[in-house]
């Protein structure tokens, strides 16, 4: 690493530290990267923007030596990088923070960082020296984390800091961050951005992979847009607009979802003075009041872990309240049963589509009837009706525009956006009166997210009341009618979206705002 360090003087602003020349990578018939040429300059943040599947991660994996390119070459600090060798990439001063962390949970932070930096057969580790170095790096870059703690006790944000420290410890001068904000809460994103700014000020260079326009505009100096493996745009952020970038990413103008405002309908769900306790008796939800009307979208903001899971479990029928009342369409809910809740008109779009939204190894048609497999439409005398199920699936694939799927496709093979459409198709085709949408657009690209929002609007227009739980304030402000904030199990009074401000919501989310006493029907737009 020594000569590499010297090769990156802090003064040279426009010097190129990393150069990709015509990199092409094919997987069978698919061209993941098509003659991509890129330049990374010293001391800049270059955003690599593109939809899911545009080839961003593939490109960076080639750079880091996980894959070998079919054509093209890579130069780091003016020297050709041998292909397919992560060790060579590390030695050349390139560090990568993967989207899925590669950390050992039962090992300490220090152990995770020093792994592989000493000769394997050395009789003992230089732990004191290593610790001093880690502490120094952590302080220098504002990456506060205690080297002796076990990784399993760390938050996601802290784990990411460990990954960044790992790269810095190896003398990285170029840092590649793959979707670093996907797992972070808003507060943690701010901290990360502050760290990144410190790093570029020190002369490091950063490639920031993302599909979120806001973040790219906030942090990057330049942006390169990939679409279907091709580099379609490369421009300074200063000269770019969100619209133009979105269009470059998607390849066509993105139509924002349209909504025709309708007056709210009757109350479809009512929670009053509701209490819910966790296994250890700790309160998860406290004295929660909520009125949901038909034809409205009620946004629930808040940093995850403040009771969203409990609220979702309650509405899904996984839990019964420990106190207070829970009425659905005017009748109280008395038993814990997801099936009964679904029969009473509750549709659920769960938070983690891979884990509980779909069964990945089942086919699309099977996932589409997952919640109605015992229904007489699909089942007679305990036997599934294959023909009906197939036709049902074909109709929904068509209606909900689920791409890359036919009824027998394994659901795991679908992209995130199309998987989410399978869930929406399953839920919305049953015409639910109450819809619980828990982070419905998380991890989706611009096009798919717009489609999901559009579908929610349509369900709303048909009379459904929607509870939209999201960590993305911009999304909430964009599509909700009213917004409330969940903080440590307390729900703030919902305010109409026109009266809500980002600052105020942000304060409420961090527990600094005032949680007014509940007033019946207060804050409703009608």
């Amino acid at each position: 690493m020594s000569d590499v360090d010297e090769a990156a003087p802090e003064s040279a602003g426009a010097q190129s530290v990393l150069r990709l020349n015509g990199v092409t990578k094919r997987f069978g018939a698919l061209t993941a990267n098509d003659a991509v040429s890129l330049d990374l300059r010293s001391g800049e943040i270059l955003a690599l923007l593109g939809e899911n599947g545009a080839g961003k991660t593939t490109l960076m994996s080639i750079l880091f030596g996980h894959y070998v390119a079919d054509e093209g070459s890579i130069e780091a600090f003016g020297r050709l990088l041998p292909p397919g060798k992560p060790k060579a990439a590390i030695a050349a001063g390139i560090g990568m923070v993967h989207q899925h962390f590669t950390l050992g949970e039962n090992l300490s932070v220090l152990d995770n960082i020093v792994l592989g930096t000493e000769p394997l057969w050395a009789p003992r580790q230089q732990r004191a020296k290593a610790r001093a170095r880690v502490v120094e790096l952590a302080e220098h870059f504002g990456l506060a984390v205690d080297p002796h703690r076990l990784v399993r006790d760390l938050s996601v944000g802290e784990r990411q800091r460990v990954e960044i420290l790992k790269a810095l410890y190896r003398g990285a001068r170029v840092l590649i961050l793959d979707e670093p904000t996907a797992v972070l809460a808003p507060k943690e994103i701010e901290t990360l951005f502050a760290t990144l700014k410190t790093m570029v000020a020190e002369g490091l260079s950063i490639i920031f992979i993302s599909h979120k326009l806001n973040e790219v505009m906030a942090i990057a100096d330049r942006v390169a847009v990939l679409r279907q493996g091709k580099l379609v745009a490369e421009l300074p952020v200063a000269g770019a607009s969100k619209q133009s970038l979105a269009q470059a990413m998607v390849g066509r103008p993105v139509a924002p979802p349209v909504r025709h405002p309708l007056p709210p309908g009757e109350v479809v769900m009512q929670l009053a003075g509701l209490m819910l306790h966790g296994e250890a008796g700790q309160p998860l939800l406290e004295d929660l009041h909520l009125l949901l009307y038909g034809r409205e979208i009620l946004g629930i903001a808040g940093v995850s872990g403040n009771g969203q899971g409990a609220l979702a479990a309650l509405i899904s029928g996984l839990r019964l309240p420990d106190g207070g009342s829970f009425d659905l369409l005017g009748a109280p809910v008395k038993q814990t049963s997801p099936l009964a809740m679904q029969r009473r008109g509750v549709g659920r779009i769960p938070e983690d589509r891979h884990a509980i939204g779909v069964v990945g190894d089942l086919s699309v048609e099977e996932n589409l009837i997952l919640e109605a497999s015992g229904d007489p439409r699909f089942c007679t005398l305990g036997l599934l009706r294959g023909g009906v199920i197939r036709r049902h699936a074909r109709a929904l694939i068509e209606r909900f525009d689920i791409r890359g799927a036919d009824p027998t496709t394994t659901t795991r093979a679908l992209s995130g956006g199309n998987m989410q459409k399978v869930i929406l198709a399953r839920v919305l085709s049953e015409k639910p009166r109450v819809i619980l949408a828990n982070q419905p657009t998380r991890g989706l690209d611009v096009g798919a997210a717009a489609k999901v929002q559009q579908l929610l609007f349509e369900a709303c227009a048909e009379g459904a009341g929607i509870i939209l739980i999201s960590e993305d304030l911009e999304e909430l402000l964009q599509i909700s009618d009213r917004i409330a904030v969940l903080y440590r199990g307390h729900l703030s009074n919902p305010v109409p979206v026109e009266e809500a401000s980002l600052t105020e919501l942000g304060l409420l989310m961090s527990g600094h705002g005032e949680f007014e006493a509940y007033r019946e029907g207060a804050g409703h737009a009608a």
Partner: protein
Amino acid sequence: MEILEIFVTLGFWGALVRMATPLIFGTLGELICERAGVLNLGIEGIMTLGALVAWFWVYQGGDLWTAVLVAAAAGALFGLLHSVFSVYLGLSQHVTGIGITLLATSLSYFAYRMLLPDVTTPPKIEAFKPYPIPGLSELPYLGQVLFTQSPLTYLAFALVPVVAYGLYRTPLGLALRMVGENPMAVEAQGIDVHRLRTAAVMLGSAFMAVGGAFLTISVFDAFYIGMINGRGWICIALVIFASWRPGKALAGALLFAAFEALQIRVQQASSAFIPYQFFLMMPYVLSILAMIVMSRRAAYPKALLVPFRKGER
């Protein structure tokens, strides 16, 4: 009361240390395998094999310490076999492990019958003698309990800090612990996951075989059918009891050996009125109870049982 008197006899404490010895070898061996992410259910068979190989080596006139090495080599060989299936081919570690146990056990008994077709009483060999450590063995009480034991017992106790140092203080030990937690992290540093896991399984299996060898060349002086008698399975339980830590593994082995030594003596003391099967059962019941208490917060290696295939993420 007679039972309390057991605890003041030196014979009980000496027996405890002796009985713990094969468990220490086996538990350390299993611990090394599992820390690298590979469950080794072959342990029962590998211990049987080690017992036979070491005994036969001495029976043929071989040297005792060479017998220990030969047993270790035989264990490592079966560890390699386990790795080929469970590490390189990524097959189920449970199924492969049971297969290894069945194979190694049956092969040992078969070989024993083939080697000695006409013998009715198992022939005795010239085994390890207790070796009083000069000076230390003169200590009152402790000298007789701890320092008048078989050299293999000293080896077992010495291995505990050695394994702990290796795991927690060397770069190789760190890589081994990491490969049982997150093989991707190891691969990303350019270390070969399969080779590292195989090496760990071979080393662990060698330990197990020496544990078996201890029984034939240090305690019973002969090979019997069924002599391992579930000790391997106990070691697997002890690893969980120990939360995958060498120090706790020693404590667990000593605790179980104490139950075992106690039940033999209580059986004799209380003669008629309680059926002896009750006492045979006692160590197992007590270990189940101890496991329930101890393993609730056990932090098992995250990649245990998970095969690693290159290029998959």
